[in-house]
């Protein structure tokens, strides 16, 4: 089925469009907006973005496959990125990763059976002073210990955000809400 943005999200795109000298510059912002709605970047989303920006689907697919934040297959309702880079590993990132795998019952790169969580490894998230840390959707949790993880995961399970398939977006509706 063809993909279409909701009117509210389309309005964000249309507000951004005149700010750039080319339509192609909207590729990444528009992909972020679409991913917030669809949850991941399917072929239908790629076709939609290509059409909107007068690009080939190859242009858009090339961008999608380059950047780690674009999910190329469906992910859980919550995405947990656990930082594995040096400062975090020095402070115990491996133990955090292992604990997350145990608590969620899935390995890095996998989604839980109930579809609630996808567990992924991230490269340095610019929070080295607070290592070990995770990014859960669009929030950072720093100075973690294995004991702190239950409360964080439980809160994410309870949190619902109507109309957003993905709980991460730096450009879409979520990013415009009060913080």
């Amino acid at each position: 089925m063809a993909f279409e943005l909701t009117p509210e999200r389309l309005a964000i795109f249309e507000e951004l469009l005149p700010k750039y000298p080319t339509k192609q510059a909207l590729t990444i912002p528009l992909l972020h907006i679409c991913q917030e709605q669809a949850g991941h970047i399917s072929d239908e989303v790629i076709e939609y973005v290509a059409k909107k920006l007068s690009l080939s689907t190859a242009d858009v697919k090339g961008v999608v496959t380059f950047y780690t934040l674009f999910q190329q297959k469906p992910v859980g309702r919550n995405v947990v990125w656990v930082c594995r880079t040096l400062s975090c590993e020095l402070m115990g990132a491996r133990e955090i990763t292992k604990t997350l795998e145990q608590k969620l019952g899935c390995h890095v790169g996998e989604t839980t059976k109930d579809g609630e969580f996808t567990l992924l490894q991230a490269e340095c998230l610019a929070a080295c002073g607070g290592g070990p840390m995770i990014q859960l959707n669009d929030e950072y949790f720093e100075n973690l210990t294995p004991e702190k993880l239950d409360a964080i995961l439980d809160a994410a399970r309870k949190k619902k955000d109507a109309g957003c398939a993905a709980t991460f977006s730096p450009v879409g509706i979520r990013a415009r809400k009060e913080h």
Partner: protein
Amino acid sequence: MPVENPRLLTKNYDTPNSWTLAAYEASGGYQALRKAIAMGPAAIREEVKAANLRGRGGAGFAAGVKWSFLKTSPDKPNYIAVNADEGEPGTIKDRTLMEKDPHRCVEGFIIAAYALDVHTVFVYIRGELVLAIKRIEQAVREARAKGYLGDKVIDQDFKLDIVVHAGAGAYICGEETSLLNSLEGLRGEPRLKPPFPAVVGAFGAPTIVNNLETLATVPTIIELGGDAFSKLSRLHHLRDGGVRLYGISGHVNRPGVYEAPVGITLRELIDDLGGGVRKGHTLKAVIPGGSSTPVLREQDIVHAPDEKHPLHPWHGKSHLDVPMGVDTMRGLGTMLGTCCAIVMDETTSMVRVAENLMMFYAHESCGQCTPCREGCAWMARLCQKFANGTATQVDLDTLADVANNIMGNTICALGDGAAMPMLGILKLFRNEFEAAIGKPTPHLGVKAA
């Protein structure tokens, strides 16, 4: 000498709601913009030159000199692209500026745009930093409502808009030409230079790409005057001026971001700002300014008996007692980089450190140049062999060989940025790699009690 604590860039970090316009203006915010506009563009550029402001993103190029390279063309606009794609492992400073004092950033962008006849500033912020993106966007909205942005900036005949652009997760986009390609909606692959961005940058137009902290420092320079700002540095005489943000992470008691003059020593950063190596442990090695900068040790001594040598004043002293400046760190065979250090104590396995870092570069290499694409992955695989005990003596030679063959053979600096720390670790800790032949290293280090 105790480390000076100037609190210029971090002045508002502890203020409640420090990210709001009201809080920023209450602290004297946007007065520098008024002063700058009264001075005029040429005088602003002179002050930034006099400030000896070295780029805070890693390369340390003089910002005032970079600005002078802008090649204005009659049929193209000028652009500023702000590099806020903070992603160099260990680096944690720009995020704090954006989250805690976004208006200081915005005021810096406006002054720079006025100085360079720019009417659109693109702020490229790492996509993961959602809070930072929200805070900068809110600051832009507030500034526009107050008349600091828009068709007439403070009622002057000067039009300016700031566009916040979120990235999508790629370390390489911190490289300036890769950032420009990403901004244009392409894969973030670096461009060949020349032409440099100041001549052909974003959308084919002349563009100045500056690190976010570099520009956030501009209001302070205008407030104090360039020369007075420069003299806050301990390395003013080396034309490395002012104050800057230092970061520290790893095995220290107080990791975090601190403001201090340019030119404090690594020892001061670790002991005075970072609170020292964690209790009961001793320092093994320190990466001075982000993961691409070769590692240093306390026991290594500066050898510069020649009076003309730039490091002669520190002849006979430990590497940790050399002031941290762009040129002094280069003299030690490393780099100042982003000025954010990673500290490792005696429990740390340097084989595992190398493995961790090479996995990072293998993942982040954009794949455009063969030496980097193949070489980073090769170094990572070899380091994994050392870590799991299956490496041989030949692998040790191959590791150095691969690193040496990446150096200088790629379009951008990512390849060098992977090879330099690899060679640095091999030079100082070769014995650990030799000891790891046939013997697995299960852990990176011992967790703090």
